[in-house]
């Protein structure tokens, strides 16, 4: 890790911690987040972590750029990776089925294995939440094993069903609400990913860990899932 601080706006600095995406980044990013929150206290407006960076948006009327840099430097002094597992671990039930995950077959072909093998491999890994973006509660997770990685669809779908679980390159994610999207869909989760009434709003937060748990159609419905086939939305 060789931290660098870069100017990105009148009241924002980018703290760049790494050059590559790696699951091992996250304990450092969690630790740095916690320190920055403490050091900036009321002067912090937003802290946006992502894969290798953290954008620090502070109160530009209360701090000069030099003071903000000083606070970031303070926050990084003797920084150690977080070992207390600050992030939560979530188990997301997923109904893997071609009707809600039309790219299951394609991914199986690419990987040269059966659909059930794709499901087994996608659901056995514990993923890290690297960042949230694209839509409220949309968590970019990884890393998906190389064999299951696949580029985004050439033509994004106009409507991807809420709860859809997809793969793009070596990342996986679940759509919190119906939206356009170009990820390869493999299944659907009945879990509410973004809820304005919930404390913290988003089920997943940066640095959390996620495991997908295959469930039957009956269980998916019992948990409140909507089994409208994806193609009925297209």
């Amino acid at each position, binding site marked *: 890790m060789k931290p660098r601080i*870069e*100017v*990105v*706006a*009148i*009241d*924002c600095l*980018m703290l760049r911690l790494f050059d590559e*995406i790696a699951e091992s980044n996250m304990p450092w990013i969690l630790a740095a987040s916690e320190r920055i929150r403490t050091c900036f206290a009321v002067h912090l*407006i*937003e*802290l*946006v*972590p*992502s*894969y*290798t*960076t*953290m*954008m620090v*948006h502070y109160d*530009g*009327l209360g701090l*000069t*750029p*030099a003071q903000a840099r000083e606070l970031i430097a303070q926050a990084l002094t003797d920084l150690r990776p977080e070992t207390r597992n600050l992030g939560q671990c979530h188990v997301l039930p997923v109904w893997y089925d071609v009707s809600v995950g039309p790219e299951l077959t394609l991914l199986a072909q690419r990987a040269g294995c059966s659909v059930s093998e794709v499901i087994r491999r996608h659901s056995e890994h514990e993923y890290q939440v690297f*960042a*949230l*973006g*694209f*839509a*409220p*509660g*949309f*968590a*970019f997770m990884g890393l998906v094993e190389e064999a299951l990685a696949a580029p985004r669809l050439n033509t994004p779908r106009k409507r991807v069903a809420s709860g859809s679980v997809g793969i793009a390159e070596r990342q996986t994610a679940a759509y919190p*609400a119906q939206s356009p999207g170009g990820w390869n869909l493999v299944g659907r989760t009945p879990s509410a990913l*973004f809820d*304005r009434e919930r404390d*913290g*709003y*988003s089920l997943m*937060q*940066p640095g959390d860990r996620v495991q997908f748990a295959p469930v039957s159609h009956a269980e998916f419905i019992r948990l409140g899932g909507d089994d409208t086939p994806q193609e009925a939305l297209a």
Partner: protein
Amino acid sequence: MSHLLIQASTPLCLLQDAGRFGVRHLGVTQGGAADWLSMAWANWLLGNSPDAAVIEITLGGLTLVAKADCTLALAGADLAATIDGQPLKPWRSFVLKQGQTLVFTRPLSGARAYLAAPAGFVAPQVLGSCATVAREQLGGPDGFGRGLVAGDELTYAGHAGQLRELPCELQPVFSANPALDVVMGAQMGAFSGQSTFDAFNSAWTLDTRADRMGIRLLGPALVYQGAPMISEGIPLGAIQVPPDGQPIVLLNDRQTIGGYPRLGALTPLALARLAQCLPGEGVHMRPTTQEAAQRQHVVFMRRFVA
């Protein structure tokens, strides 16, 4: 008690405030008034806090009828507003009597007008704000991102003081070809030398692809020579350059993270000015540093508060 009835509206007439904060790490965009300065003046005219809930009217198309006597304030663009046919200029508070109709028709100067009410319009708070973001289904009169539509009724809870007008010398002027200050930073050093020159020495024209997420500028293609980027947080006003080389200034409803290289970001005053530009209008970019921009902004805000 209802104060105002919306008789006609467009998808660009929205309840706004300063937007949502403390939620960017959850993928929730900021939202809020695109021209924060005009919103602040509209509120100042009524003695409100600068970010009390207002109506943002882009281009016109809004008709309101008073159901009771109302004191309101108007700032920002001149959208050829009339009260029962009589012209109403911005930068003042005014009385709309019961039964009178306020109409916004078309942009004469600027693009976005802000209508304020005493203590702000009453609106559901969603994630700490009423800012309307249709894409995220947040804010607005229903709390789910809907713009204002005919039949909506709006109320406010405050009491109006004396009518005020913003002194002429404080009124923002929307003159042609404004210079927009850019805080240099982000990946600016990874653009070609020619591109750095072009960015600050070319006439840029607003594309028709302009909305509350971003405004695309047309001009010489800017060439990024750095390595592909990993997605990272994007600040308000960031100037990102996609592979076609035509910069996009990211506004209030931008996505929260992204992986296009950026030249830096507009200052708050430059953003407010850009928000009043229409497609086809020209702008210039003027380089500044974070330190200089911050010092100037602190001075400006002191004067503004006084």
